[in-house]
């Protein structure tokens, strides 16, 4: 911890430079020691990345996240698409995108508020059922009735 004092510095340049030199030398020494102290627990705290532990990591969650954002952007694009190009293509795409976006969205809500293995399973099963019925209903509406785009147009014209 003490500064390394060189006899030559005292002899050649007097006392003052010695003080300055000692303070300059002591600080890096302290820093180096702190570095060494800290590096030990730092290695212990390092959690291996997925590349470290062979294959036990799954990319499912990360891919799900990306999928959610992709569907969100697609749904955004379908707004103007529905307005400028109404028809069965947009109707069915809208049915799919709306259902999937809603399914994943409610899924996040359930993950946040429902706890306990059996409750989580039941809630997700219920959600799956609801989303299936929703998609079926929307497709039925597109096929047997006026379709989503026309329905919105009619609703708004009243």
């Amino acid at each position, binding site marked *: 911890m003490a500064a390394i004092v060189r006899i030559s510095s005292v002899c050649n340049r007097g006392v003052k430079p010695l003080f300055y030199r000692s303070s300059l030398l002591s600080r890096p020494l302290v820093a180096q020691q702190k570095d060494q102290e800290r590096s030990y627990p730092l290695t212990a705290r390092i959690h291996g990345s997925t*590349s470290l532990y062979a294959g036990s990591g799954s990319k499912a969650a990360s891919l799900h996240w990306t999928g959610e954002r992709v569907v969100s952007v697609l749904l955004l694009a379908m707004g103007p698409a529905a307005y400028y190009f109404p028809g069965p293509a947009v109707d069915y795409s809208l049915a799919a995108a709306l259902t999937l976006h*809603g399914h994943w*969205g409610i899924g996040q*809500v359930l993950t946040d508020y429902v706890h306990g293995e059996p409750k989580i399973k039941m809630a997700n099963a219920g959600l799956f059922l609801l989303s299936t019925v929703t*998609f079926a*209903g929307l497709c039925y509406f597109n096929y047997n009735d006026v379709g989503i785009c026309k329905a919105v147009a009619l609703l708004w014209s009243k």
Partner: protein
Amino acid sequence: MTFTRQGTCLFRPQFGILYRHAVPMGTTANEEMNRFWAKNNKLNRPMSPHLTIYKWSMPMMMSITHRGTGVGLSGGISAFALLALVLPGNYPYYLDLIHSLSVGPALLGLAKFGIAFPLSYHTLNGIRHLFWDSGKGFKIPEVYRSGYVVIALSILTSIAAISYM
């Protein structure tokens, strides 16, 4: 005098010797969350007050509104789909039925606003979320500014949508 920058070496896999104290994560975030809830429920621990004690902020309110409008819109779509499957007549029939009730322009406008506002708010705030997902706009003043913009635009677009046809 030199001293190695040990911080950077820790993150390179080839420096295996530095990892001898590292323990790879054996659990996912999901597993850890479930363990937390299982343990605390088993011990019958009461939940700490949170919503009732922390001061509500604009970002907090906007966040829960985003969730609320999302759930509401999703419920509305599901209800619509269910009715489409269950009810006998077709859409124009029911539309005329509602129209024949002659609810009046004020209530009609209110109903349209009730549909338009959640949709525009959720959409615009959704775009704000996508900006955050790309890493932008996290500084606190930016969060508040973008929030106010979303609210203002939501109200404006809803009013525009009502006045449109």
